[in-house]
């Protein structure tokens, strides 16, 4: 399972594993959408500690999660971002858009 989620009190934690590329993005987005629908979170934390690779498809995943949670007036935090993913987020200028914590 590329995404495992736990939620409590409308706080959703989603831990993402493996390679976040175009091939994996569809199932990650589907699962995140499903969990967001279930939890209706005020706060979403995306934990990328297990991500072994990310390209611009990963950016699309993060931006979609951000949009969905913002529709619920919630906030998103991205944590434990691996170095390769940080470089991709910076190259795309997305590091300005959401709260990152390494």
């Amino acid at each position, binding site marked *: 399972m590329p995404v495992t989620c736990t939620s409590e009190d409308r706080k959703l934690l989603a831990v993402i594993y493996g390679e976040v*590329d175009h*091939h994996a993005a569809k199932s990650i987005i589907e699962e995140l959408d499903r969990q967001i629908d279930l939890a209706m979170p005020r706060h979403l934390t995306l934990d990328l500690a297990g991500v072994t*690779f990310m390209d*611009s498809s990963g950016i699309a995943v993060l931006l979609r999660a951000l949009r969905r949670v913002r529709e619920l007036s919630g906030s998103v935090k991205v944590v434990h971002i691996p170095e*390769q993913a940080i*470089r991709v987020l910076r190259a795309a200028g997305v590091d300005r858009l959401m709260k990152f914590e390494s």
Partner: protein
Amino acid sequence: MKPINEATTIFLSRSANEGYARMVAACFMAQLDPTLDELGDVKTAVSEAVTNAIVHAYPNCLGMVTMRLRLFEDSSMEIMVKDKGVGIEDVERARTPLFTTGGGERSGMGFTIMESFMDTLKVRSSPGKGTSVTMRKKISRRVGGTR
């Protein structure tokens, strides 16, 4: 400059082959003793180019994607990703950050990332005939490394 080494791989435009292409490029690049950052940058650029071919080149069927890898004496690497698909109508517009013809699940940042991580990027396309993306990166020579 003639390449000192070259390898070509051809694969079906299935998304499962995106990881395969990254691995092939990383393996080939190992000869240059890259840093982890350089390895990551090239893998990412390859991923973007190959994903573009897989997503866009053959909209209603599967086709073949070719990736040619070359190493040069000055420690630079060239990657060419080529397809015989639908082609790009307006290459300049396609290279604009955030522009995508791929719908909501695409970020439109593929070319931006390739440009950021590689030293040079050339895109040639002919609608109805295909597209080739050629990029080069100079890999740092490290003191004490073996070639």
